[in-house]
């Protein structure tokens, strides 16, 4: 048991913080949200040069053999600058799946170029009717002569608009809600029969609605075991939730620190508004939530690599609940304390607010995680 950052981890944190300050402050995101792609390939390549895309993959895959905690530390800093490059979809979600379940050929073809910053990835799992149920899958992959034919639709595919390769969850057997029968496929985003509709999100980031209209994929595009895709998918989405907590921590911290500074600077009734006890107490309550978010975020990051699914789910659900509830408390009162200026587009605080609300709804909302927690086998014991 140890909560200190290693020397290497402290170096990562410092270098990402410096990157955000010099290369990707919030103003950069402001400009990019007007662009079509929403992020810049040359900045992605720069992040690869720093090694941040490789950090958590095993050394034999071209990574640095780090842990999920390293990813979390990077994401927290990226969140402070609202850096729009597709770190979660590409490195955490799709890259993580290929790294853990991919064949050596798949690693070489899809993971290596991404680690080197030459391509990006996405994970297409959500459907219009599925909400947060990963087993609810209507997209089908039917056996064909050379491999499989994909038919269906995926929605809110993060970085789906720009990714070179997509991991697609599709049903290879069974009915809509069956737990078994889901398989994962690696699909080129320019494959015939695949069409993408760009979706600009509230947070200024991009995703895609993707139609698969008889997309042919070769047999070697199957990722992991046929019909056994649900467990890997759950694993990936759990890591997505832990990653959202990490990035969200950066945004919550930034919102909170900016709010405290505002309380010191803004004067009304001839005094700084931070001298009023009503606002001081609100700020103190926000501080407690920020610290609790930080605690659960760290715990979730530590347990994200845990082989025991029960432990992993318990901690990640607790962290996501804290982000969604405690984080919401911080974000809504940050706006309240900023007053009217907070709802102008020129003030940054609203940008953080919107990004956090998007993270809130990704990878399970509060009710979903509370429900999942109570359905864990160990919940029936005295305490988890």
């Amino acid at each position, binding site marked *: 048991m140890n909560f200190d950052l290693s020397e290497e981890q402290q170096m990562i944190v410092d270098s990402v913080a410096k990157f955000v300050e010099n290369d990707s402050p919030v103003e950069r995101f402001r400009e990019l949200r007007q662009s079509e792609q929403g992020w810049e390939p040359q900045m992605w390549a720069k992040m690869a040069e720093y090694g941040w895309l490789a950090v958590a993959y095993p050394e034999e895959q071209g990574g640095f053999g780090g842990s999920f905690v390293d990813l979390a530390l990077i994401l927290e800093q990226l969140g402070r600058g609202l850096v729009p490059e597709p770190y979660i979809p590409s490195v955490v979600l799709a890259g993580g799946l290929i790294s853990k379940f991919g064949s050596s050929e798949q690693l070489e073809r899809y993971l290596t170029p991404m680690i080197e910053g030459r391509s990006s990835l996405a994970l297409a799992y959500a459907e219009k009717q599925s909400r947060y149920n990963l087993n609810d899958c209507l997209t089908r992959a039917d056996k064909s002569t050379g491999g499989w034919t994909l038919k269906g639709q995926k929605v809110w595919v993060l970085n789906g608009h720009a990714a070179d390769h997509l991991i697609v969850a599709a049903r290879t057997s069974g009915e809509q809600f069956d737990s078994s029968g889901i398989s994962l496929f690696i699909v080129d985003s320019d494959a015939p029969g695949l069409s993408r509709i760009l979706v600009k999100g509230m947070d200024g980031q991009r995703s895609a609605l993707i139609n698969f209209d008889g997309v042919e994929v070769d047999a070697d595009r199957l990722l992991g075991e046929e019909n056994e895709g649900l467990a890997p998918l759950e694993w990936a989405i759990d890591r997505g939730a832990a990653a959202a907590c990490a990035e969200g921590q950066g945004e919550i911290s930034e919102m909170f620190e900016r709010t405290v500074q505002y309380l010191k600077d803004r004067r009304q009734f001839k005094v700084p508004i931070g001298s009023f006890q009503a606002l001081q*107490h609100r700020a103190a309550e926000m501080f407690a939530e920020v610290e609790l978010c930080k605690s659960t975020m760290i715990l979730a990051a530590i347990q994200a690599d845990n082989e025991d699914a029960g432990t992993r789910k318990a901690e990640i659900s607790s962290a996501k609940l804290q982000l969604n509830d405690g984080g919401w408390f911080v974000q809504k009162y940050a706006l309240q304390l900023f007053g009217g200026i907070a709802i102008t587009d020129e003030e940054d605080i609203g940008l953080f607010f919107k990004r956090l609300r998007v993270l809130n709804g990704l990878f399970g909302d509060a009710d979903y995680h509370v429900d999942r927690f109570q359905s864990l086998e160990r919940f029936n014991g005295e305490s988890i």
Partner: protein
Amino acid sequence: MDMSFTPEQIAFRKEVREWIDSALPPEIKRKAENGANFEHDEVMEWHKILYRKGWAAPGWPEEVGGPGWDVAQRFIFGEECARANAPTLSPFGLGMVGPLIIEYGNDEQKKRFLPKILSGEEVWCQGYSEPNAGSDLASLQLRADKDGDDYILNGQKTWTTHAQYADWIFVLCRTSSEGKPQQGISFLLADLKNTEGIEVKPFLTTGGTDAFSETWFEDARVPQENRVGPENEGWTMAKALLGHERTLIGGVAESGRWLAATKRIAASTPVGVGTLMDDVAFRRRIARLEMRRRAVGMANLRILAAAQVGRAPGPESSILKLAGTEVYQAITELAMDAMGHNAMGWFDSPLEALPEPQQWIASQFNYLRACTIYGGSNEIQKNIISKVILGLPNA
């Protein structure tokens, strides 16, 4: 960063668990299993058993009788005690005045007081609040006038928890009225049982127990050698002690017991053909609090771990008090909800009407309304956070 335990730590957990199981006296164990209330004598009996094992003061340095455990071991020990429902030891000696004497006391005081705090031979209570000095603690008025080698104490302390059982009391008193109220406060140790002019009057709480008392001082003589630290500089130490107190009174371990009790009650409460524990809506309510409690538990661990490497629990421990007591109360509220009609009962209700595991719930539910008030009310904690941590300006 990692949360995994080494083989040595896993073995340590096993050792602690087995020892607690064998060391708990049968009657205490029976009460523990039934979630019943422990009498003061039972708490002290357990204290002495822990003392003989060398485990009474997990947080003390080895040279004054601590077991020499690191944070992980202390964490494991705390978890196992809570798991076994073992009695929680009185915090005033081991958790409060003990650490204060270790940090600020002279050699004589360490020799005189620490061994008997550790052994439980002398029981302590706290003399901080006064009728007119609650949240505004610095306005305290208990006078200590010098007379020869003694101070003569006149005034009143209140909320002196367990004073009726205590042998000694540590008091904040006024030795000077010059300057700001925070100046002129000294920290004294008084022999409750053998000092003429000290009177303890327990009073009944809404929980139906006399957990608290008022303590009156009338020309009570306390030797000057019982002053800890310099005269008129007690305030700094008082604040340091509150730092220790805040990490204790967040109630993280205790709220875990309540959560377990709530689940037991729900599982034994029939609803239709099943039990309340089958009701998904109720399970979600439990789950929310259990998840929130984990967040506080992890924050607690982070703060304790930071304190271990030479940093005392700082003002950030205020968040433990704040968030910990709120979740603690919410869990007691949920336990009451779990009981349905049984929540009308009281600890002296006949067992036929109210099963033993539910007998003390209502009393504790009432008593624990105090936890957001004592140890510096939660509003005071917010003042501390906004001023000391966030640096917000004074009005």
